[in-house]
């Protein structure tokens, strides 16, 4: 009798343990700035991640098991990012990590993840060296190595033979001007002038006057939307009539708000288009607006897809996935259908490639360019 009770107890304990293991959730870490000067971005990432996670869990999760995201506030500070990385690595429940926001903290944390073997997927780190930190880094943002040649081909196909390039003098701007110039010249076009300006510049009339002297058919702006708005206004003041082109950082409603009529006619490429007719995108935009009462921007879309890509990678391996298995599964991501276009990670470099859309600003709106 005692024997049978004991065995029963043991059996039930065993059952309880396996039962608990079956019901146990899968944990993913997400490090983003939730306080400090860049908290507005972290907020957007968390909003988008929550939407994607709820959708994924509602659709059955990983073989019936739910996934949870553990958020940590990196304040966009590399030191803080490293501390969080150590914490995530030591937490045995966590199988993969998302984030950080800026390239600096992402790379600092990446050193830890690379050494300890934790897959890391950043929605935004676009520094050329981010993926070179180790084999454990991934990103869901196109780099200028993809956008530059895409835009160069677009200009050439549109019959543009001569172009002037104006770019921001930092890592990003140099790669943006460099990649574009290389591809444009390889396609038989001529770059008349390349001008770089220091971050924080506000008066571009001297540059524009110099650049316009060579009468290029088009001007290519490798910069973000704030300087972009100023340079567009000043180009209009100087009656510059060249066609104006730019890359994805121009895709921000704020650009049109700031530049007003000066933004009319500007051409740019981007991965995410909020008023795209695709049901996937319009559903995301409508749901986001309903929940958070604001329009999702490019950042929200990138985080939404980054979370989706990671969850799918975990799902492909199954509920007992290890960190190493998830890394390999992430590396095999191909044609993930996201709101920022179909995404494939390169077999060798792990760089994402996405379908880019061509846009034009017309009547104060971003519309698809023909």
């Amino acid at each position, binding site marked *: 009798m005692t024997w049978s009770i004991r065995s029963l107890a043991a059996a039930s304990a065993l059952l309880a343990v396996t039962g608990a293991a079956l019901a146990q959730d899968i944990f993913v870490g997400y490090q983003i700035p939730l306080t400090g000067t860049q908290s507005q971005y972290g907020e957007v990432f968390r909003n988008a991640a929550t939407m994607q996670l709820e959708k994924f869990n509602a659709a059955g999760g990983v073989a019936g098991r739910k996934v949870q995201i553990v958020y940590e506030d990196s304040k966009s500070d590399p030191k803080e990012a490293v501390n969080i990385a150590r914490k995530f690595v030591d937490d045995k429940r966590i199988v993969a990590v998302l984030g950080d926001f800026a390239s600096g903290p992402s790379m600092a944390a990446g050193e830890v993840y690379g050494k300890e073997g934790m897959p890391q997927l950043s929605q935004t780190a676009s520094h050329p060296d981010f993926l070179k930190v180790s084999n454990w880094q991934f990103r869901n943002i196109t780099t200028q190595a993809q956008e530059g040649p895409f835009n160069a081909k677009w200009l050439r196909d549109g019959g543009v033979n001569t172009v002037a390039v104006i770019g921001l003098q930092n890592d990003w701007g140099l790669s943006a001007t460099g990649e574009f110039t290389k591809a444009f010249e390889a396609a038989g076009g001529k770059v008349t002038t390349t001008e770089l300006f220091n971050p924080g510049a506000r008066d571009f*009339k*001297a540059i524009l*006057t110099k650049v316009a002297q060579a009468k290029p058919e088009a001007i290519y702006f490798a910069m973000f939307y*704030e300087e972009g708005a*100023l340079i567009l206004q000043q180009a209009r003041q100087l*009656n510059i009539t060249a066609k104006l082109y730019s890359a994805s950082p121009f895709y921000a409603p704020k650009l049109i708000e700031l530049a007003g009529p000066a933004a009319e006619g500007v051409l740019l490429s981007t991965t995410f288009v909020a008023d795209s007719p695709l049901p996937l995108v319009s559903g995301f935009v409508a749901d986001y607006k309903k929940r958070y009462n604001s329009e999702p921007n490019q950042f929200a879309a990138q985080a939404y897809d980054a979370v989706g890509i990671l969850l799918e990678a975990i799902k492909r391996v199954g509920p007992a996935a290890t960190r190493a298995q998830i890394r390999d599964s992430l590396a095999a991501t191909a044609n993930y259908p996201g709101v920022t276009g179909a995404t494939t990670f390169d077999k060798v470099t792990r760089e994402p490639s996405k379908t880019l859309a061509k846009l034009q600003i017309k009547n104060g709106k971003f519309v698809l360019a023909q």
Partner: protein
Amino acid sequence: MDPTVLLQQVVNGLSIGLVYALMAIGFTLIFGVLNVVNFAHGEVYTVGAFIGLLAITALQPPLWMVLGMVLLGGGIAGYVLERLAFRPFRRFRDEASIKSKAMREATLLSSLAVSIIVREALELKFSGEMQTIAQTYLLQTPIQLGPITITDGNLIIFGLSVASLGALQFVLYRTRIGLAIRAVSNNVLGAQFVGIDTGRAITATFVVGSMLGAIAGIMVGLYQGAIFPQMGFEPGVKAFVAMVMGGLSSIPGAVVCALILGVSESVATQFFSDGWKAIVSYSFLLLTLWFFPSGIFGSKKEKM
């Protein structure tokens, strides 16, 4: 080289120079009277721009009313600034403490502290982003003069610089408070001896100087289409350089040097990469200090 391009660059440079000049006027006025650098002048400029922006967004008044509100707000900002960052360090009225270096350096730091607090507060409230300005208020309508293009903003800023200078000369040389300001500027102790309320004269200097700074902020903000919490920093540095080149307490000198700075930066862009233009302006500063140690327009005799 195409002469019209060069001419356009000179015009571009004059319009940048005027921006620096507008900022330098108030800056130099305060330095001339107290012999201390007011590091918060850049934030007075920013505050002026934000007051104007709030007025525009809330009430859509005509431009002259915006300017009136900014003048008022700038004056108040100057008064508060003097109360917070300068007056507490002027408790003693004896000769030793008035001439003490420590006193001057204390206000250097206290004004820097005020500037940081104001900037961060604005950033908390409005975020670091450039603010959206109603398009109708922007001073960006191009005006074609033969081969040269300018904007209405250039003309308005030019007019405003002239008016500011004129108004300042009027206050300094035609009013009693102007006389008091000049007396304090000349010799604080002497001014006290003849019964001038030096505290009041100094307050008046700050009010007038900050009104000019605030007006500069809103005008440049509307001209460039860029109003944001960090906007005061760069013109502040350039105004400081212009003031030093101009001889520290000469307002016309600072204005002329601000124009020289703007034109040299703009013309330099024509020959070098834009990233190098700062070298040109700072080389000018070094050359001035080597060959004219008391500034191009500075008086030989040491003040105070």
